[in-house]
């Protein structure tokens, strides 16, 4: 081990020996990418099957705090990109990982994050094959930002998407909503709230494959990340030109999440999730999809939360437990805690 530093300094981004040591010891030793050229060179038979398509996606991950109950930014970075591949029906194959590290970041923290990433990638059955690190001056970053890009293969015959959603589809989520958002709100500490909550962060590749196998009629799926369930549904319903009608009584919510929302005047439908997807499927395949999802831990809480109608009025409406109805609008900016 030649890397004796405790913290990252600008030297670790300077292109020299310090950088090489950091990359070799902290990243390459764990990810074990194939080769050391500037680009990974890859082959996979599934890609050359006639009718197969390549799926490609990217996300940057920024989160405070970097480590939180139930995960860390590394887990988010793997799961987020796996999920963006998975919800398109793709089987994730390879990931890239690029790090923007703030000067002063603890190297031990980097090691922990990298370990989580490797573990989560293994769970998802894929490899991190290429990467990058940059170091920025203190006050010009926030610990670590990670950007992952993912390549997957969509097998021949699979073609799902919001445009395929039809009136009458069942709307299914794979578990309780808002745990991640509420966990982060509490973990951040500025509001001095605490609760025994754990982020829902999880890779949903296997879940999505299982659901597709059980319910081949699935029309579309999205993971409900920033902006929560409400935003994902609004986007999809608008694109499909249907109305999604949710039933408030069927929304799976933990009491702690509800409590947090009541205290801060937030709506749990807009809280971020990192291991939740919403999928649409013909009503007659809903039970099959649910059964397949519930058979996996990340789908244990799968449940139907509503259904689609011909477009009538707003893209997303909610029937309150109360018998009333209201529109579930797209979020405007960010959700700000209210007091009044």
């Amino acid at each position, binding site marked *: 081990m030649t890397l004796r530093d405790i913290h990252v300094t600008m030297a670790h981004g300077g292109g020299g020996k310090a950088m090489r040591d950091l990359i070799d010891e902290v990243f390459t030793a764990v990810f074990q990418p194939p080769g050391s050229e500037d680009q990974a060179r890859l082959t996979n038979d599934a890609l050359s099957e006639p009718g197969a398509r390549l799926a490609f996606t990217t996300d940057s991950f920024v989160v405070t705090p970097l480590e939180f109950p139930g995960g860390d930014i590394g887990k988010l970075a793997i799961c987020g990109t796996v999920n963006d591949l998975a919800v398109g029906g793709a089987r994730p194959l390879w990931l890239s990982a690029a790090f923007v590290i703030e000067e002063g970041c603890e190297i031990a923290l980097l090691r922990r994050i990298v370990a989580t990433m490797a573990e989560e990638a293994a769970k998802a059955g894929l490899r991190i094959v290429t990467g990058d690190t940059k170091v920025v001056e203190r006050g010009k970053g926030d610990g670590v930002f990670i950007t992952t890009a993912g390549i997957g293969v969509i097998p021949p015959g699979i073609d799902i998407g919001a445009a395929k959603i039809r009136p009458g589809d069942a709307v299914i989520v794979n578990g309780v909503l808002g745990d991640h958002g509420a966990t982060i709100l509490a973990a951040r500490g500025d509001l001095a*709230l605490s609760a025994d909550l754990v982020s829902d962060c999880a890779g949903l590749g296997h879940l999505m494959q299982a659901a597709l196998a059980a319910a081949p009629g699935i029309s579309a799926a999205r993971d409900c990340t920033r902006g929560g369930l409400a935003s994902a549904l609004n986007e999809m319903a608008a694109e499909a030109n249907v109305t999604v009608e949710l039933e408030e009584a069927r929304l799976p919510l933990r009491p702690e999440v509800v409590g*947090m929302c009541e205290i801060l005047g937030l709506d749990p439908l807009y809280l971020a999730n990192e291991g939740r997807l919403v999928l649409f499927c013909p009503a007659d395949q809903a039970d099959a999809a649910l059964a397949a999802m519930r058979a996996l831990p990340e789908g244990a809480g799968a449940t139907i939360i509503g259904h689609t109608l011909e477009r009538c009025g707003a893209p997303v409406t909610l029937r309150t437990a109360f018998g009333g109805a209201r529109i579930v609008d797209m979020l405007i900016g960010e959700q700000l805690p209210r007091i009044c």
Partner: protein
Amino acid sequence: MCLGIPGRITAITSPDRLMAMAEVSGVRREVNVACVAGNRLDDLVGQWALIHVGFAMSLIDEDEAEKTLLALKDLGEAQETLEQMAASQEALQ
């Protein structure tokens, strides 16, 4: 305006600053209890209070809550009777 929510006082955290832990559906927050502190702070533990911006503003009167709920129940029963009456009247016609 004035988002307030019932929470249970679970512990006194700082007697001199009149701070206590309150819990709302499993969510904990330290709150100031100056407005609801009687002579014995410890008596607050276990009580429900209306929490607003980090302050316990008012103790919740469980009897009054019960009364309100009872009134609702009575009204419900009365309405049911009324509706049954209306229905049988309709049937008669």
